[in-house]
């Protein structure tokens, strides 16, 4: 009766597209040339949106904003794998997910300018409003998974959070629910190496985040989060399993936050420029471009057109966002309950 081994685990890592733009054909998901061009367009659109948001904030035309720069492959790659009917639970940094799924950019600007009307998700999407308290949305995805399972729908729930989010109690409770009830949920962690000033190594002592899934009896995988093909493929596979009743999957997208945490942050206080420079080499757009060049899918003209179109769309969105009326203070009262309480009705007369 010596000490014996009663269980073993391996944590896998998926890489498809390297920094030079070479893709591993054996792992490559099936994407037509047009799909890939579409992805490129979404990349450019997202970068344009993000840069504009930062500019608007600097000009005082937007509130605090959280940049997506560097994480585009993780967001676009995963979002493309979902269907519109799936339930999506973003944190606050998922502009790339929202835009990819068709969320109007003008509404995103409106939201970040401090207007709730910007997070009234359009009726054809099931994207939950931006979640500010870190990690709490993970449980909502478990709940959506329960509802989907109960109704025997062929849908899934997808939930996004950061490396910091893995430390909250709700992460644990949500993962455990998903494991116990084998819920159709895909957990997507953008491990961008930082939670404000706290580096990944100080967030948790586990070597990978992916391995945390084993504590709940399901699979976790780490993917190169700057490799859009790897992210897309891992998400698609996870969704297939979810829809087939095979339960949840945890995907750790290994990526990097190139900007400050938000416009209220100054990351030079706590991290080196070298680290940021190193990650520039791993830029997710650059390697997609290199791949497309090799495949003959990228031309300077295509790029120019894409960029112009993105600029136009973003311009229009800004214009639209800035032309809305000031929100009606009544909204404060009428959306607290389905029907305002007598007290709210009385308070409304202050207006």
């Amino acid at each position: 009766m010596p000490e014996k081994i009663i269980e073993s685990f391996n944590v896998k890592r998926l890489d498809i597209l390297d920094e030079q733009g070479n893709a591993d054909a054996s792992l490559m998901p099936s994407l037509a040339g047009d799909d890939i061009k579409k992805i490129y367009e979404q990349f450019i659109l997202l970068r344009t949106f993000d840069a504009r948001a930062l500019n608007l904030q600097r000009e005082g035309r937007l509130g605090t904003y959280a940049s997506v720069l560097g994480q585009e492959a993780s967001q676009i790659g995963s979002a493309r794998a979902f269907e519109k009917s799936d339930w999506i639970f973003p944190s606050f940094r998922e502009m790339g997910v929202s835009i990819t799924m068709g969320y109007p950019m003008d509404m995103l600007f409106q939201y970040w300018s401090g207007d709730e009307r910007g997070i009234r998700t359009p009726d054809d999407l099931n994207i939950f409003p931006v979640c500010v308290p870190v990690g709490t949305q993970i449980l909502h995805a478990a709940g959506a998974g329960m509802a989907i399972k109960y109704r025997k729908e062929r849908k899934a729930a997808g939930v996004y959070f950061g490396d910091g989010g893995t430390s909250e109690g709700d992460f644990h409770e949500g993962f455990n629910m998903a494991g116990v009830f084998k819920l159709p949920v895909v957990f997507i962690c953008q491990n961008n190496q930082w939670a404000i000033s706290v580096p990944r190594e100080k967030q948790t002592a586990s070597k990978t985040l992916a391995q945390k899934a084993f504590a709940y009896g399901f699979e976790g995988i780490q993917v190169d989060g700057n490799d859009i093909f790897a992210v897309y493929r891992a998400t698609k596979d996870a969704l297939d399993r979810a829809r087939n009743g095979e339960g949840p999957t945890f995907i750790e997208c290994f990526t990097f936050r190139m900007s400050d945490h938000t416009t209220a942050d100054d990351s030079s206080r706590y991290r080196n420029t070298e680290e940021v420079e190193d990650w520039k080499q791993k830029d997710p757009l650059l390697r997609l471009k290199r791949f497309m060049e090799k495949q003959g899918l990228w031309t300077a003209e295509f790029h120019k057109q894409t960029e112009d179109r993105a600029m136009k769309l973003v311009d229009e969105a800004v214009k639209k966002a800035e032309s809305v009326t000031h929100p009606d203070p009544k909204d404060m009262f009428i959306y607290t309950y389905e029907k305002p309480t007598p007290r709210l009705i009385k308070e409304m007369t202050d207006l």
Partner: protein
Amino acid sequence: MPRLNMVQAINMALKEEMQRDEDVVIIGEDVGKDGGVFRVTEGLLSLYGHERVIDTPLAESAIVGTAIGMGVCGLRPVAEIQFMGFIYPAIDQIFSHAARIRCRSRGRFSCPIVVRTPYGAGIKAPELHSESTEALFCHMPGLKVVVPSTPYNAKGLLISAIRDPDPVIFLESTRLYRLVKEEVPEGEYSVPLGKARVAQEGGGVTVIAWGSMLHRVLQAVSGLDVEVVDLMTLSPFDEVTVAASVRKTGRVIIVHEAPKTCGFGAELSATIAEDLMLHLKAPIIRVTGYDSVMPLPKLEDTYIPTVERIKKAVEEVLRY
């Protein structure tokens, strides 16, 4: 008509609502085979199966957070927290999400969940099994708070709570669970949220109470010319019924078992004095639990307002 205690009345409400609407599901610790530690969900598992009577892992934030997700997706989850003392780990989900989803999403999403939990002292239970922190939930816009005091009303209010499009915290007095029996009709009826009832009519003093304290008040004032208002819903509370009684009597006592400071009695007292000061013949008195930690069973009876303390308060306001 069957005479039921509160456990049975609540069980009946759950059973009938689940029968009526298959979106109604139950989620909590030990709610399945065990039928809940107070047997409130007894028999529901065998009627409706594991998919609708969901035993969860031991995790309160998960119970409420999952219920929120289910509610947003169109189900009508009735979540059970085993004792009110264990709702605190779920407060973040209740405050930050359940209460705000409608507002945040400008009405696109809502959160039609009920969070049921046994509350209050009186059964000599261990620590944290006797909490009565209803006031915390009344301070949070977006929530409704209901505290029934009789089997009939418990059933009717729970039906209303389940059908309500907003999140409801539904508090069930452990002391009352098996204390009182009354006739409870089978089948559908509902007692509206937001309405109080006059449990005893009278002219000299108004005593306002809810849940378990209601009975202690009735005991204390029986035979006296005292009007007793059973608030039933605390948030939003029925200012009309309260005001009508206060206008009539001019003397007000509020009784609750929670600590005095920032208890719901403070809100009632403040509102009444604000709106009706000129009708008041005496200062409003709060008879409440003390501002100390709820003791273990040996001192429980010293902590909760006694019949004597209530009687003394009546005498006191009548002195003016």
